[in-house]
Each structure stands twice: as C-alpha cells, then as structure tokens.
C-alpha cells in the first residue's frame, strides 16, 4: 500500500490514520474532513460546551504538533462527493480526485431533521455554540426527542434556568434501548428537575413560534432543538457499488470491499460476539473501529474480527449512566445490584437467557467491573 485515504476526520478517521502510522505504514496518507475544524471530540457538545463550562479549545483531539507528526495530507473543509471503486479514486467537493490503494470510510452521521425551518440540531461545535447563545434564565426551550442527546441537552438547559419542554413519541423514553423500568427512572428524574416531559407525542413540524404536533396543537418555544436520531453520511457513495443500508455494510472485519473499510457511526458491520449486524453511534466505538479498520487494511491476511462490547455513558443532572454491551437486543431486564428507587443500581440485560449488556447508575466501579467481565466471558 502506498496511497492510503481516510475520508472523515473525526474520532474514527483520526484513530484510523494514527493506527496506520503506528503500525509502520510510511506511504502517503490523506485525511479528508468536511468540517473546517481540526479533529475534535463531540460528546461534550451536549454537556460541558452547552453548559458553558468548557470552551471549544477543550475539544481538540490532537495538537498541531501531534497532527504534523502523522505526516498527513490533511484536507479539511472539503467533503467527498463520489467514490470510483474500479478506478480507486475519491472525488472531492473542490473538484479534485484523490487516488487510493487503501480506503477507510468514516464519514459519520448527520442529524435527522423535521419539516420547517429554524430548529437547532446538535452534531457540530457550531451547532452547540449556536444553541448555547440562546439559552438562559426564563428562555423556553422545546426539545424534540428524549433520546440521550435530547435528554442531556434538556438537563443542561434546566441547569441554565430555561423552561424546558421535552417531547417524546414513545410512551417511555429510551424504552427500546434500556427497557421500560429504567426508562421510567430517567423520565422521573427529568420531571423532578422541572422538565415538562410529554410522552406519546408526535411532532409534525417546526414553526416560527414553536413546534406543531400531529394533532394540530402548537407547543410554543423561544428555541427548538430537534434530537430525533441521525442519518449515515453515505450519499457520496450512491452508485459506487458499495452496499449501503442505513450505513456502509461491512463484514466482521469492517471491510466493505477489497481494500475498503468503514468505521465509526457510518459503519454497519457484523459483530460476531453478539451474532448481530449493528451500527453503533458511540464515541468509544469510533476509536476502536477506526483502529481495527486500519489494522485490517494493513494486514488483510491476518484480519481480526471486530467484536467489541459497545460502551456509552450519559450525564444528566447528577446522574451518571454507563452502559456496556448491546442492550437493544434484550428480552429481559433484571436489577442485580442496588435499587431503582435509590437511583443507584446495576441492570443486567439478557436475550434468550444470555447476558447481552449491563447498565449502571451511580454505582462504584468495582460493582460494575464484575458484570463487565461476565459480559466478556459470555458464550454466544
């Protein structure tokens, strides 16, 4: 390999580029990023950045010196517009074509939006700064979607003194991921903190004065944040011949085609540990899969299946939520330590009698670690 190209310059793309170099790859290495900013960390956007506890300089993932040491052809502020698999080139928005003999696709996701103009989303540092400028005591924020991103943002906005309405189509927030019991606890915590959480509510559009519900009701707002999930950035791969189905479809090595790998939020791959095809929008997965993709690209013959135990955390008020595993596939939940009523507990998630995940709130690390070890040992 002489011309490696990584498309996407966030956590996954950066991890891929660094791993290529660390593993001894000395050829040309092009890192392409649509955003103008150097690689930065996104999880704090809906936490410390929105809360004005941190300024954006705290998000920078690598110093200029560290980036320079990677000897990159760094193309920031220019997106990819096409992929020619047979000709082995990536087309960029500035009209140039970049040849490759090894490719990592790490173009991430973009926020799903609703009809109508004027709503905020939360994906980039500019998004977070635009919203935080508009928050403050007495401001009325309507958050559409009580997933982790919406819930974190609602919690921060309450902390800043905003009136917050949180709208969620499901009867219980996050029930599909964490189960009804745990989802109820999260709902209670938001209500105790003064959030007007309304569940079972479908939003049809954003308007000038707030959001319009499916039943015609207007929910008034000074600002609206839409946090209703995201869409993989794969439009540039249309017609390329790669299989795209809610993400770039990969095998268990994160390979999408010979010498073409995908990593991070955009990748849908087969995780042999869980026997499932999954796409995981977690920070840790971006780094781990970027590393795995780079290793497998360099050493395809000795490829190692990418079989991580997904991990995510969420901070809401003083509640720290940590989850390990693939909770979505569960068919039963058991509280195995602590108690829901105390907001200190470990919930174990199983499918067909096998442990697939654990979620902990407010528990010491040693109480969680035994369950993490159990997850790694579970036979599938």
């Amino acid at each position, binding site marked *: 390999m002489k011309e490696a190209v990584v498309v996407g310059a966030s956590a996954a793309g950066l991890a891929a580029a660094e791993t290529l170099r660390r593993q001894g790859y000395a050829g040309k290495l092009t890192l392409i990023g649509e955003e103008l900013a150097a690689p930065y960390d996104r999880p704090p956007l809906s936490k410390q950045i929105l809360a004005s506890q941190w300024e954006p300089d705290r998000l920078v993932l690598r110093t200029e010196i560290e980036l320079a040491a990677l000897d990159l052809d760094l193309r920031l502020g220019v997106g990819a517009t096409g992929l020619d698999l047979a000709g082995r080139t990536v087309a960029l928005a500035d009209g140039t074509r970049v040849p490759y003999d090894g490719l990592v696709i790490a173009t991430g996701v973009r926020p799903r939006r609703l009809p109508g103009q004027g709503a905020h989303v939360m994906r980039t540092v500019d998004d977070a700064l635009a919203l935080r400028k508009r928050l403050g005591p007495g401001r009325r924020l309507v958050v559409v979607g009580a997933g982790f991103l919406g819930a974190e943002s609602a919690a921060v906005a309450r902390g800043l003194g905003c009136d917050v309405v949180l709208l969620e189509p499901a009867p219980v927030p996050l029930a599909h991921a964490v189960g009804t019991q745990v989802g109820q606890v999260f709902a209670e915590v938001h209500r105790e903190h003064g959030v007007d959480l309304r569940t079972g509510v479908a939003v049809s559009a954003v308007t000038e004065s707030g959001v319009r519900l499916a039943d015609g009701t207007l929910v008034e707002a000074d600002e609206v944040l839409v946090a209703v999930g995201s869409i993989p950035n794969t439009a540039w791969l249309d017609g390329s011949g790669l299989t795209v189905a809610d993400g770039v479809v990969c095998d268990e090595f994160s390979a999408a085609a010979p010498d073409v790998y995908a990593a991070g939020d955009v990748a849908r791959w087969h995780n042999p540990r869980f026997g499932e095809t999954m796409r995981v929008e977690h920070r840790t997965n971006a*780094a781990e899969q970027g590393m795995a993709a780079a290793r497998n690209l360099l050493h395809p013959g000795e490829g190692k299946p990418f079989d991580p135990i997904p*991990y995510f955390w969420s901070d809401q008020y003083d509640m720290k939520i940590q989850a390990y595993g693939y909770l979505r596939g569960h068919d039963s939940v058991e509280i195995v330590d602590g108690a829901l009523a105390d907001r200190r507990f470990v919930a174990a998630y199983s499918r067909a009698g096998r442990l697939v995940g654990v979620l902990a709130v407010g528990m010491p690390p040693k109480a969680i670690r035994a369950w993490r070890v159990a997850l790694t040992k579970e036979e599938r």
Partner: protein
Amino acid sequence: MSMRIELDEPKCVAAGQCVMVAPDVFDQRDEDGVAIVLDAEPGPEQEDEVREAAAVCPAAAIKLVER
C-alpha cells in the same frame, strides 16, 4: 524513548476502559470511578497497552508524552 502519562482528570468520564486494557497502570477511584494513574512512567513492556488505553478512552482524557 520513554513515556509519561498525563491524565486530564476533569475530562475523565469513569468508563474504566483504561483499567480493562492496562490494569497495572490504571485504576479507578471507588467513590466516583474517575481514573487513577498507578504508574505515570510505565516501562517499555507496557507501552503498547498504555497506547491502546489512551486510544480507547472515550473522553480523550489520557495524554501520552513520549520523549
């Protein structure tokens, strides 16, 4: 070459990924799970594990100074 570990403690989210990867170098505080560096200048035999720990840290809180 030797390596020094710098932990940006306010960034740590208590995931414990570093402890799983490099248990001889990292631990976590009992009260809040925040990482503790047991050995800030690990020997060459631990450098691969420590690099892996820094790379998988979900909060980008582990900085490695190589010199």
